[in-house]
């Protein structure tokens, strides 16, 4: 116990004091990465908060609120640069909400089975590991190609994959796309689903999905993904406030202030960087977080026992 430490602030919902500057720095670092890569940063921030002793339920719920703020300033930044396809973001958002609702339902079932932690860890390892490796491989290839002097494989007008053969096509002018809504709905809802189960925004999955499956142009993809994240996370904040009542507004605000400042710098740095370098960095980061979870599962823990309070004392 640190007595008389002026940097400590008491969190009313988490019910413990925390060092303001530590939280501020965490928010700032994750915010920077969030602006840089066009991700919400939830997959980094949620584990960081849990590892620093904040109850998992509060961490997950509060991070959704923090992501609203950090993506809002990111969205503004990309909006000014005309880097958002509003129509595409709208379709993604609607499907994302459907996916989140299913996710919240599954979340409840898993929790009643008592193995939610395990499922979350396994899901982090699987998704982060897979996506991290894929991103690393792809970006390395792109960098090698550039180094060897070959022209980058740009999008040719006639280039199509199986996705472009699906029905219910809609035109997205800003993205110069004419694609079926089925894959868009698929991406939006599955990321919404994973997001609510894992307590993350899912931007790190959204960006590659939009690039590789739909072939959304690189200058549009991040802004559009951020707008979709903002929408889903705002809905998630509301649902958490009502269901789990574990959104800590003081913790959220501290994270936000650090986060939005970091995100501004991140977005500016990101604009000046090559896409493949960004993807390489993000791939590494995603892989590291996945490995961290794998480490926890594989290495024998120091203390095999853990205590969890099921029923809070009657207030």
């Amino acid at each position, binding site marked *: *116990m*640190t*007595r*008389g*430490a*002026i940097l*400590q*602030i*008491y969190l*009313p*919902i988490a*019910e*413990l*004091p925390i060092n303001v500057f530590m939280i501020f720095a965490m928010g700032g670092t994750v915010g920077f990465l969030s602006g840089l890569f066009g991700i919400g940063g939830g997959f980094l921030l949620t584990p960081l908060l849990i590892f620093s002793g904040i109850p998992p339920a509060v961490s997950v719920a509060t991070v959704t*609120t*923090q992501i*609203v*703020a950090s993506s*809002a*300033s990111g*969205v*503004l*930044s990309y909006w*000014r640069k005309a880097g958002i396809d509003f129509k595409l973001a709208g379709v993604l958002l609607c499907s994302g909400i459907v996916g989140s609702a299913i996710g919240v339902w599954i979340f409840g079932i898993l929790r009643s089975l*008592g*193995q939610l*932690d*395990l499922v979350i860890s396994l899901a982090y390892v699987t998704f982060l590991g897979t996506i991290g490796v894929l991103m690393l491989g792809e970006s390395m290839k792109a960098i090698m190609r550039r180094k060897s002097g070959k022209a980058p494989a740009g999008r040719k007008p006639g280039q199509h994959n199986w996705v472009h053969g699906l029905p219910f096509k809609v035109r997205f002018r800003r993205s110069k796309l004419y694609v079926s809504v089925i894959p868009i709905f698929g991406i939006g809802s599955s990321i919404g689903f994973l997001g609510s189960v894992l307590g993350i925004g899912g931007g790190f999955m959204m960006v590659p999905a939009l690039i590789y499956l739909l072939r959304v142009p690189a200058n549009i993809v991040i802004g559009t993904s951020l707008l979709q994240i903002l929408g889903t996370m*705002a809905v998630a*904040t*509301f649902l*958490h*406030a*009502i269901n789990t*009542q574990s*959104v800590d*507004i*003081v913790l*959220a*605000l501290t994270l*936000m202030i650090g986060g*939005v*400042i970091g995100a*501004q710098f991140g977005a500016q740095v990101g604009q000046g960087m090559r896409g493949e370098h960004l993807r390489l960095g993000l791939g590494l980061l995603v892989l590291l977080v996945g490995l961290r979870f794998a480490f926890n*599962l*594989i*290495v*024998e*823990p120091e*203390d*095999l*026992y*853990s*205590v*969890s309070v*099921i*029923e809070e*004392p*009657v*207030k």
Partner: protein
Amino acid sequence: MRRALHSLTTLLTVLFLALISGAPALAEKLVSAVSSSHVAITSNFTGTQILVYGEIARDAETVSRTGNQDVVVVVEGPLERVTTWRKDRIVGLWINATSQTYIAVPSFYAVHATDDLRNIASDDWLKQYRIGLEHLPLAALGTRAPALERNAFKAAFLRSRVQHGLYSQMSKSINFLSPTLFSTTVDLPATIPTGDYKVTTFLFSGGVLLDQQEQVLTVAKTGFEQVTFNLSRQHPAVYGALAIILALFTGWLAGVIFKKD
């Protein structure tokens, strides 16, 4: 002669009954108090201390005892239900495999005493009055695990609580300011749960409980912390909407401040 003997027997019986029931009618009486009956959790709350003090009062007629007098102070937080998990290696992964659930365990528990508990009273006494960590009734819910297993879980639970500063046991931590005046300070860590706490002071002499006193200590959030907490519980939709508005505003504000082009 017979009459005198009879009255002596009656007196001894009364004495004996009073002794075993721990009734406060006897010689030594205990007067105890807590420095403050409220602990207010504010935004800069990083834990606090409470002072429990009191006096062993004697009637004028009472002959002072020769035996040692021992004081025990127990602070107990609101009860809660907890599960202790143990990980096992399953298919190469460390997974929560077995668990024991305890109902009605104190969320906070501190015991201070003038001596080692085992010098103060017998295990039966200590168990009856829930004095000492090992005497807390930790009965696992519906378990058929062998005693060895149950004890391992119990030890792990207590270890975890002690590590987090929520449980503590200290002997020789009560100071006598005079032969009859005593005091002790109990640490309340920053993570204490809110609710009503029971502060019980016991007076033992020669292994027998002479008197006990109970005070209530209320730990509650105040001011902004209380308003925020209540809003989140009583009007969750309003709270959620406020959180979103706050987030959007912060994001927008940052966007405006950092606008360059």
